[in-house]
């Protein structure tokens, strides 16, 4: 199947003014400005197939939002090529824009003082959605997100989570084929995050839409994305299955056991994470796990031995902290 999103050696550089702190430096800036070239996105390439839900990960400032903005036509790339549904996004052709949507968790586009229903009507006009289609989609989404009793309240009276649900409905009324979701669950509580997640999954299933999602909540990524693309300092670190990422980057496993009164120098088995009551937790390099567990079982009478893969948050953290040196 041909890919719906294809980017090749995509780069975006910014000229950022730079100066020392202080009044003198600020005054000098009036005369002569020093600029620094920042490579927000540095020659990244990947393809996304129709219907895929891809997690786009990276720490703050990694270039995720910049990439999403280039893909949605907001920013002109410095170099490289982008193709979304066969269009060049930066040209902002109306046919292209009609088929995509951009949701940003920290921005809202609904009219603050009006009920969401009125803003939905405006979306209908903007996207020239036929009235019947519009009503059907709107009611379908309202039902899926269970917001029937909220759509008539002014948006300013809604909670953050309720507002986000409305934002998502508003952003999807034209049934886009491509969803760029930038931190859609930012600041929401766990239940609300789950709700939004289920809705995105449902939308993807019903309409076969392609989703590119950034999130700092790994639960979002785990629940929705089979594949993840990781960037750091504008460079591509990893592109593949989430399970492969964990396998590749989780260098350690957590071994826990109950010591049963026996005491020893635990550090000879691995890094001691904690010793609480009789319970010992060690961090052991992945390749030594089996050796360590068999030693523990043989040499000491330990109980309740558990071996756990590091939580995905920790894996991601280690990916980011190691940085690009480990990219093959």
């Amino acid at each position, binding site marked *: 199947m041909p890919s719906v999103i294809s980017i090749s050696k995509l780069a975006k550089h910014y000229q950022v003014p730079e100066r020392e702190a202080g009044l003198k430096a600020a005054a000098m800036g009036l005369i002569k400005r020093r600029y620094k070239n920042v490579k927000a996105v540095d020659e990244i390439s990947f393809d996304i197939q129709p219907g895929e839900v891809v997690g786009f990960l990276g720490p703050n400032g990694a270039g995720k939002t910049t990439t999403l903005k280039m893909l949605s036509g907001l920013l002109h790339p410095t170099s490289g090529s982008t193709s979304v549904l066969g269009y060049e996004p930066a040209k902002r052709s109306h046919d292209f824009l009609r088929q995509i949507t*951009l949701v940003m968790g920290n*921005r809202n586009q609904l009219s603050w003082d009006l009920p969401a229903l009125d803003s939905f009507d405006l979306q209908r006009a903007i996207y020239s959605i036929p009235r019947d289609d519009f009503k059907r989609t709107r009611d379908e989404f309202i039902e899926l997100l269970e917001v029937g009793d909220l759509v008539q309240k002014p948006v300013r009276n809604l909670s953050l989570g309720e507002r986000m649900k409305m934002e998502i409905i508003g952003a999807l009324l034209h049934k886009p084929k491509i969803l760029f979701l930038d*931190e859609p669950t930012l600041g929401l509580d766990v239940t609300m995050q789950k709700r939004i997640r289920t809705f995105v999954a449902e939308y993807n299933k019903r309409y076969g839409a392609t989703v590119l999602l950034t999130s700092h909540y790994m639960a979002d990524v785990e629940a929705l994305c089979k594949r993840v693309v990781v960037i750091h300092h504008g460079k591509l670190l990893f592109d593949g299955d989430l399970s492969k990422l964990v396998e590749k980057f989780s260098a350690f496993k957590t071994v826990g056991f109950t010591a049963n009164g026996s005491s020893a120098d635990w550090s000879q088995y691995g890094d001691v994470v904690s010793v609480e009551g009789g319970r010992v937790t060690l961090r052991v390099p992945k390749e030594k796990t089996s050796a360590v567990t068999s030693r523990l079982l043989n040499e000491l009478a330990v109980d309740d031995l558990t071996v756990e893969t590091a939580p995905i948050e920790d894996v991601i953290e280690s990916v980011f902290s190691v940085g690009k040196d480990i990219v093959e």
Partner: protein
Amino acid sequence: MNGLRLAFNYLRIGIMNEFQYRANLYIQILQTFIALGTGLIGLNLVFSQTSELGGWNRTELLAVMGVFIMMGGIIRAAIQPNMERLMEEIRQGLLDFALTKPADAQLLISIREFRLWQLVDVITGLVVLGVALSQMNWLIGVWSVLAFFSALVMGAVMIYCFWLIVTSTAFWFVRVHEIANLFEGLYAAGRWPVGIYPTWLRMALTFIIPVAFAVTVPAEALTGRLSLQTWLGALALTITLFIASRALLKFGLKSYSGASA
């Protein structure tokens, strides 16, 4: 067609928004009457000393004042709020939503805001104009009315283009709010026909900030002063400004970098 429908929809939203803030209507009425009162006092003061100002008599100047109040209302209802929003969104990098819509970017950023209560000024201006016209002994023909309305539309478009050009510079200079204040100060000069000002100021009010075309020229049309040359000049300037402002906005959008999330 699509553009008109979109504009209508935004107008609807804008009006609904304004209905939420009833107090603004009363404040606006109060403001309008204070402005009208001081304007009339000023006019009376001038004509207690003289019977003519730069070739305009008292009733004709009342007509100028009517156009001035009306145009001010149009600017504050439909032009200024959109441009101020655009400035703010450029500065904070919030233009994203407008730019991801399948509609002409210029159209979209120009129709999103509407301040209904400013229409109090438009109505008041029309009343003042009506009073002035009824006091004139001059019969107004169809051509004068056509010339008046066309001059009014051209004037409004020129003011819009001026604002758009200034606002678009925000793509590079980021903070251009002070220019909004500057505009208000200079627009106030339109209260009098620009002909009474020294040449340098008259030039500035004609070609830099087109207050002359927005107020004096429509008033000239109604008082039988408008020449075909001026009308054609206004048309040419309107078209030029429109093309220039559109090009500048497009250029600015290219260098729009947004704010990171």
